[in-house]
């Protein structure tokens, strides 16, 4: 298998604090409405009231989501101008801004709504794994920002060896075919037991 860099997300202890989202926004100078990393919230359950007392089966969890640099990225296949490509040396899925025509097909096909449309220049932008920071040997902005230390990164196969190969939890679209490059340690409520 060729090289594939990937995110590690210990989703079970994400506290939804948005430090990663803001660190990313600040790093990439993103205007309002654009976020390369987003915190998706899920909640459910109900209450039963019996006399004075309350019973609950509430559940809730967050999933911090960015582009997962899919192994079989559908955004590449749909891009009519071949602006999106997968970099061989590390498996990053990147957008060549010069060729992007802003048709937003990548956005439509991405299960995570990762590509963001920049109205200022009519192009798509997305998480590039902070490749400039990687080059300097430091972690992506979101990873070093997480106060709970639930974000990490590394070679996909190594992360899988260490943490298992879960890349889907309840609430996310089915992504079995596209093989997103992340490893999740799921929240107790985000899996069926």
């Amino acid at each position, binding site marked *: 298998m060729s090289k594939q860099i990937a995110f590690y997300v210990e989703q079970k*202890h994400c506290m939804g604090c*948005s430090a990663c989202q803001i660190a990313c926004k*600040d790093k990439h100078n993103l205007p*309002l409405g654009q976020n390369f990393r987003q915190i998706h919230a899920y909640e459910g359950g109900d209450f039963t009231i019996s006399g004075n007392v309350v019973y609950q089966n509430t559940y809730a969890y967050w999933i911090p989501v960015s582009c997962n640099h899919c192994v079989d990225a559908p955004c590449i296949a749909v891009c009519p101008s071949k602006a999106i490509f997968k970099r061989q040396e590390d498996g990053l899925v990147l957008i060549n801004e010069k060729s992007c025509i802003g048709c937003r097909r990548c956005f439509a096909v991405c299960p995570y709504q990762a590509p963001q449309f920049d109205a200022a220049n009519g192009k798509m932008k997305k998480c590039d794994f902070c490749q*400039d920071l990687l080059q300097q040997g430091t972690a992506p902005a979101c990873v070093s920002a997480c106060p709970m*230390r639930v974000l990490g990164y590394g070679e996909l196969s190594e992360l899988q060896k260490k943490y298992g190969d879960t890349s889907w939890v309840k609430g996310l679209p089915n992504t079995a075919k596209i093989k997103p490059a992340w490893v999740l340690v799921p929240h107790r409520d985000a899996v069926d037991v």
Partner: protein
Amino acid sequence: MCKNVIKGARDMTDTTFQEETIIRTSGSHNCGGRCIVKAHVKDGRIVRITSDDERPDTDKRPQLRGCLRCRAYRSYLYHEDRLKYPMKRIGKRGEGLFERISWEEALDTIADHTKRIMAEYGPEAIYLSYATGNAGKTSEQVWMRRLLALYGGYLDYYGTYSSACTNAATPYTYGTVNSGSSREDWVNSKLIILMGFNPAATIHGTNTAYYLKKAKEAGAKIICIDPLYSDTAVALADQWIPIRPTTDSALLDAMAYVIITENLQDQVFLDTYCLGFDEDHMPEGIPAGNSYKSYILGTGTDQVPKTPAWAERSTGIPREIIIQLAREYALNKPGALIQGFGPQRHAYGEQPPRSGAALAAMTGNIGIKGGWASGCGSPCRKQYVGSIPINNPCKAAISMYMWPLAIQKGTELGKREGVRGVDKLSANIKLIFNLAGNCLINQHSDTNGTAELLGDENLAQFIVVSDHFLTSSAKFADILLPGDNFMEREDIVLPWSAGDYVLFMNKAVDTVYECRNGYDWIRDLAERLELTAEFTQGKTLEDWLRFIVDETRKENPGFPSYEEFKEKGVYDWEYEEPAIAFKEQIEDPRHHPFPTPSGKIEFFSSRLWELDKPAEVPAIPKYIPAWEGPEDPLRGTYPLQCIGHHTKRRVHSMFDNNDWMEEAEAQVFWISIYDAKKRGIKNGERVCIYNTRGKVILTAKVTPRIMPGVISIPQGGWWSPDKEGTDQRGCINTLTKYQPTPLAFANPQHTNLVEVAKLDQMEAEK
């Protein structure tokens, strides 16, 4: 200077040589944390903000990683609405109409009023209101205190809007508020009960949620007791027990009942270290039936056993869950019952901290590894850091919450109203300095009532405000001054709560427009009061920072030089072991009595007994049903309890006007799916929340994450009344009542009954 130069940091392939300077600083607002913040500066502008990402992230010294708020500081610093010039009021007070003036004129006016009011009414008429927007060692507050102290004095305050009740009550049990062990010790707990404690949002010491995660990884079970399924509960809890606000002591009483009746208490511990648990261990001269145990079992004065069935009525917690919780806490030693500040910000907020401490004592969880003494929980390990000398000759002080009464009828207030230092106040408040704070209206109770009070210029004759934005409080200024912010000044800051470190804030960029540092303008004010030499002692601000470091070094032999501290930006005290609160008292009680009058852990406090207010300030901790609590008949009209939780997106009211934060978390109030359904309210719908004190229009978040019967308006929204006085932003204090608590004279912010209605229904009723 602490400069790191990163070459080509933005883009390695860029041919133009770029240079970024990295400045080490820290937030200095009242946020709950104190983190390392690094400003990346280029061409005099901050282009990026990072946090602690270079120092090794070890178990012993985890990195001080910042939260979203300092990380988003560029959108605060460069906000177009920043106050830019000194201004004077031209409209009615509170209306928010101002006109630009010069610093000269502003300071002349302030000096004239200060002289006049000091001469006419004396120092007790001059009040420096509670303000925490700048918590640095050399904040505006500090300098104004120093100057006024030299000028003849000022009316001081005690307590805080955050923690006044627990600060007042915990010492009646332990003799101190420092009942907290180091957070590193939580990995030794088998069970952690978080009671109204949500560090995911309140931070409550940088890394506190992370320490809880480590405890969980080490095997601790975590139970959250909270009206909300909090962010902390989502990330860490094994169990959520929703509880009605103001009833924490009822739950704790019933847990005590289970423990006593099942004989699970640590009797040896109680007999050795405690006073007033049972009738055999009471102070002399107290009539029979007044011990804690008699109260719990109902064999004392009230004849009501505090059974789980009794507690279920007020708390809303099923009795079997109360029994399970009590057994779990009693049998899984060591266990940590950790109380947040939310449960003590209510009508009888003095009780929960003492009730919690009683449970910790009954289970013998005090002074041991993995235990927790409950109560206030301020760290028991503290380090000395020097301060700017302030010697206030005026000895009078009021509770920080009592100033509206001191404006209206100060001269009628005395010891019974919590006045300290003097028997009675000699003047009403006439001059208010509100420097970097929003408690003048927004964060105080009853905005409508307070606005009316402040609007009367015969009462408070002159109000000076300094801030970054035109906040709700700033609108009440007569003179409004533009302050600098933490990226624009140097200072020294301490952890908000726990943490064995101190930080140096380096200045990252120049102050914009005519914003000025507190030392600069207060020195100019000193000149007008002919006190320059006394005030400055010939020192620049840097000299004073050096002075603080020198004072610190005298007490701490390992402390670095000023230059080294400034360069590194942080100094860590290093210890072999986590600190355990009351370890010495437990291991060697003969030589280490508790700092209480009896030397014991006081279930029964003779000092409280002597106050002779048993219904409101009992000598033992008791559940006292709150006015506007779940048992108030007023619930017939206003059926919902309204609280105001802290959110990640604001520091109290700071950052409310910040759109990066609004994007991260919009200002919405929480209502349970149960209550919303009853009223036909949909998620995302704008509705009206009201009671007799005011109306708020706000968007509803309909959620299973809040208990039925309770709603929560995230505290800190800027009060924005429309023409009819209806708040359009969701300032919870539009609905809160101004009624000081009985012992601490503190704010009961989470004690409110309200109703929620759809807007068309409100229209129809008009």
